[in-house]
């Protein structure tokens, strides 16, 4: 996705924050991003593809989220208030708010994070993913033993995260660029044709879709 941006969005500077793994990002990074031509809009892809990682595995005890579209509840599994889960995400995105504050003189667009993948995709990739093993160690779980969380939980968490990203963007006077509906299936998961052959990444077609979404958003903002 990032490669696609760099290759095709020649007039847009892109800042990507890796929350886990990858290059460390600090204030100097954001100051550097903010230091260029202020007429150039900045697109922030917060957390890369890993925004929903902490909800990837089944938690102990299990829980369920009821987001706005939910009308049924699984018997015997505690319901966590959606607003409580969102509050946790809000607290965890405080660094995004700080970053947006540093970048405030630019036109800011905050990109929606990639939707979770269907459980079959995740399970099929789990053994081959050193990244997932590493993530499991970070979260204190063994991915080869602990089940993947139900797609309803992961989609619910992702939807809440999109709300948080939107509110963070608007709080900073920026624009949120949501993932288009055509990217997700009936369960809310990333559609198969946009999935890379791994646990979390979208493929080049997903990158192209988001690129086009960003382009439209920039046009809309300019209008």
């Amino acid at each position, binding site marked *: 996705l990032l490669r696609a941006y760099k290759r095709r969005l020649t007039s847009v500077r892109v800042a990507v924050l890796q929350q886990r793994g990858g290059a460390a990002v600090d204030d100097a990074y954001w100051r550097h991003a903010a230091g260029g031509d202020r007429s150039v809009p900045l697109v922030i892809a917060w957390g890369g593809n890993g925004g929903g990682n*902490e909800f990837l595995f089944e*938690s*102990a*005890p299990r*829980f369920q989220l*009821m*987001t*706005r579209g*939910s*009308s*049924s*509840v699984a018997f015997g599994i*505690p*319901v*966590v*208030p*959606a*607003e*409580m*889960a969102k*509050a*946790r995400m809000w*607290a965890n995105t405080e660094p995004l708010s700080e970053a947006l504050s540093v970048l405030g003189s630019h036109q800011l667009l905050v990109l929606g994070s990639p939707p979770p993948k269907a459980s079959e995709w995740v399970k099929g990739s789990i053994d081959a993913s050193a990244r997932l093993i590493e993530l499991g160690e970070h979260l204190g779980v063994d991915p080869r033993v602990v089940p993947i969380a139900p797609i309803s939980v992961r989609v619910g968490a992702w939807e809440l995260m999109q709300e948080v990203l939107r509110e963070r963007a608007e709080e900073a006077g920026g624009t949120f660029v949501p993932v288009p509906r055509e990217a997700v299936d009936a369960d809310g998961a990333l559609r198969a044709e946009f999935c890379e052959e791994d646990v979390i990444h979208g493929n080049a077609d997903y990158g192209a879709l988001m690129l086009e979404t960003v382009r439209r958003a920039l046009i809309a903002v300019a209008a």
Partner: protein
Amino acid sequence: VTDHPYRSQPDRSFWSRAVARGFDATSTVLTDGPVLRYDDLIVSAGSCFASNLVPYLEDAGFTYLRTEQPHPLFAEVPENLGYRNFSAAYGNIYTARQLRQLLERAQGRFVPAEDRWHVDGHVIDPFRPGLRYPARSDAEFDALTRQHLDATLEAFERATAFVFTLGLTEAWESSLDGAVYPACPGTIAGTFDPERHRFHNFGVDEVRDDLIEFITAIRSINPTVRFVLTVSPVPLVATATAAHVLVATAYSKSVLRVAADQVAAAMPGITYFPAYEIVSGPQAPDDFYDTDRREVTPKAVGVVMNALLAVSERRDDMPALERNGSTPIVRIVERDSERLASSTSVLTGQLIAAAECDEMMADQESVAAI
């Protein structure tokens, strides 16, 4: 001098010997056996004073039964108004009617006509109006409320000792079916509607009957549970009567005190524990209340709790009593204040975060001053 009944009375019966000098809070408790036992599963409910006992009990090695706690993943996310202070997340229960109705709702015997308020895209629980994270849909509200009531019923069924602190006689209720709210609609959430909401100041008979009804109903599902009744020494934040708040407080505490005594006398397995007298009696030192003469100080709570623990059964390996009693509660209050100050609320934000209980929201000027 002829013999007379006072000659055989113990020292505690005489003001000169029991209060004027050598006052011992422990001697105020009249009980046939230990008030709490070391292997008790303790459940408590009541006004905010009731929540003060929990850290003391846990620090002393007793088991405080908790059936409704946040999921571990969200344990650090703050909550308002002490909803995590009790065995389940019912928050402060100020009146005996409210307690009775809570059990009836948990058992499905009472379904309030006005059971939710829709406010700014959220669904508010009128019986827990200060919840920091209200539902976002009716379906989520139904699920969260059922989950809460199930956890409440589980606590009531499993308790071996139930401590209830009576707090108020003044309440606001639905004119549709008498459902009692913990706070006047409109003070924390919702909208006050004089067509639907009315004031009620309970009398002794009503409080007594509600308590007896509650205890009888609990014992039908949990026959051996013992009860400890106390009256909160914390004065009213505000009164909705025409009386001065000081006079209204005297009425309220008097009614509760009498009702508690009548219930303890009428039913077996019930102990009246005189927290009210220990804190507010003429023997109490000036620093048992803070400068506003309403807030009970940690020192006073410590004395009350030491008295309670001294008349309770303890194992040899339980932690020693902390005689000044002030450290645990101070630590907890500070921690909660820090957490609350660093976050915002879905509802009315910092105002609710600053308030310690629903009742305080009746006087928002004083909360804003915190």
